């Protein structure tokens, strides 16, 4: 008895330590230059959102009445006035507004995609894997949710629960996973007929484990790339929801709201009102897409 145990311990010592696919992926991700640069820049943007308000003496809701309505003449960005990004038409410091907008938009983008990844992947994988009636019912629910006018659901939420930032995230989360679940289901339908899934079945692996250990890792590539595509869509959805009144209201703002304001004033010579939020938005999207592609390369189970 004792001998046996000892032998087992010794065997375990000798046996090459198996590399988990996640450790493998981490190592490969760290080698990908584009993805690492993306991650670095994105961290800077997050730091900017978190601590940027300490860099300026103005708050996002402070109104300089001397500058109100004269953004084009007096509000241009300048170091000397302390308005690094200039002021907007309401006489507010644009730097402080961009910092505050970054917080809302990053949260909306990341939470929306996270919900899509978790719920969308599991829902789609279960639907495709179980198949038959379950699949039909689950996908018809998605069809209905895809078609129900989003705007009315939001208005109803607003009426029932009032405006709050949590309702905003609930509203985003409710719809962000729909397309993802359809994509994942399609991939699962094709994956579940493969030989390695059959082998897992034959060796008696339970369905839940097959989904989590064999189906989901093989879906990661498409899931990660689509999630990175969802980030800008979620940021725009946030501004639409806020426009309807469920999300944040002025003077609180977000990239989407700033962008649409800036775009509508493009011709009045206040181009910085468009270019600063656009710059942050586009930079974030570039980071997301390089991180997404880096993760895809790192997580591809066939590519070693």
């Amino acid at each position, binding site marked *: 008895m004792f001998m046996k145990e000892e032998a087992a311990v010794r065997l375990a010592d000798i046996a090459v330590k198996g590399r988990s696919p996640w450790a493998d992926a981490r190592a490969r991700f760290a080698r990908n230059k584009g993805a690492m640069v993306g991650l670095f820049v994105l961290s800077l943007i997050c730091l900017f959102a978190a601590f940027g308000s300490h860099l300026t003496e103005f708050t996002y809701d402070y109104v300089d009445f001397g500058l109100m309505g004269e953004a084009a003449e007096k509000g241009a960005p300048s170091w000397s006035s302390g308005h690094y990004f200039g002021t907007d038409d309401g006489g507010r410091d644009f730097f402080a507004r961009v910092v505050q907008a970054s917080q809302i938009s990053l949260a909306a983008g990341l939470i929306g995609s996270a919900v899509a990844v978790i719920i969308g992947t599991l829902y789609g994988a279960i639907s495709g894997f179980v198949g038959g009636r379950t699949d039909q019912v689950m996908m018809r629910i998605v*069809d209905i949710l895809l078609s129900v006018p989003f705007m009315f659901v939001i208005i109803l939420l607003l009426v029932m629960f009032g405006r709050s930032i949590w309702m905003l995230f609930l509203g985003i989360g409710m719809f962000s996973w729909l397309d993802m679940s359809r994509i994942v289901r399609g991939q699962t339908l094709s994956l579940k007929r493969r030989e390695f899934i059959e082998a897992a079945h034959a060796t008696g692996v339970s369905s839940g484990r097959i989904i989590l250990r064999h189906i989901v890792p093989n879906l990661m590539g498409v899931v990660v790339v689509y999630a990175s595509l969802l980030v800008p869509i979620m940021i725009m959805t946030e501004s639409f929801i806020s426009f309807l009144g469920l999300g944040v209201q002025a003077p609180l703002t977000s990239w989407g709201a700033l962008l649409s304001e800036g775009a509508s004033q493009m011709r009045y010579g206040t181009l910085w009102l468009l270019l600063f939020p656009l710059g942050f938005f586009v930079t974030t999207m570039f980071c997301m897409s390089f991180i997404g592609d880096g993760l895809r390369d790192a997580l591809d189970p066939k590519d070693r």
Partner: protein
Amino acid sequence: MTTYIFKRLLEAIPTMLLLIIISFLLMHAAPGGPFTSEKAVPAQVLANLNAKYGLDQPLWRQVANYVWGIVAHFDFGPSFIYKDRTVNEVIAQGFPVTLQYGLASFVIAVIAGVTLGVVAALKHNTGIDYAAVATATAAHAMPNFVLAPLLVLVFTLWLGWLPGGGWEGGELKYMVMPVIALSTSFMASIARITRSSMLEVLHSNFIRTAVAKGLPMRKVILKHALKPAMMPVISYLGPAFVTMITGSVIVDMYFSTGGIGRSFVDAALNRDYSVMLGVTILVGALTILFNLVVDILYAWIDPRIRY
């Protein structure tokens, strides 16, 4: 397969009913109605208006009447705001416009997106790949409410090549900017999904075999790799196609194309519930139909798939 398609079409009936009922109830629950206005309307006038449109009946009766109107006469009721127009007329006027620029955008987005994605995947981790991904990211990140006025600024105000808006029965020069504005971000998404899926397929054993037995690369890509790589793209294209042919609010607003996106926004702002319901049902029917098409395409791409 025929049985499957038939079964799915049968299933569409309860799904549509459910969608109609949910949408109807949602709109009923939303505050305010088409006849709510700033100035006080005499109670008798309001009662008469409600009676005329059947809004004084119990809720289940209203739903039943609405569904019966659609099933029996394909009649989506009168518009609440435009007294002389029915919902059918509003949709019949806007939908052909939307369908035209939507289809054109779809074709362009798919061809450009798939090409870009395949090229990027083939040149994985080279300058060409990075350039393709960067182009796609920039195109995807550019919100269309920024792109639309930018296009007008460049092509209409500076260069003077294209008219700034209007439709004129879908003449080419009126279509160019709406199609660019609508297709850009879809093209970018298609490119990114194609690239990622193509990379995965290119690493599979059957592609290695095809290359090893000496098939020319062009044939390997077009005959062996492209078809399985299209799986996730097609999943994405189902809902995306519906979104494109039912129009974009932004495009309709910036280019005054008069499509259905505009009707939907007008209806929402005026609380014209019957028009909103009509558009919702149109979108729902198309969604169900094209998700069926997607499922059929799955089975064509991967014959192992069974439903």
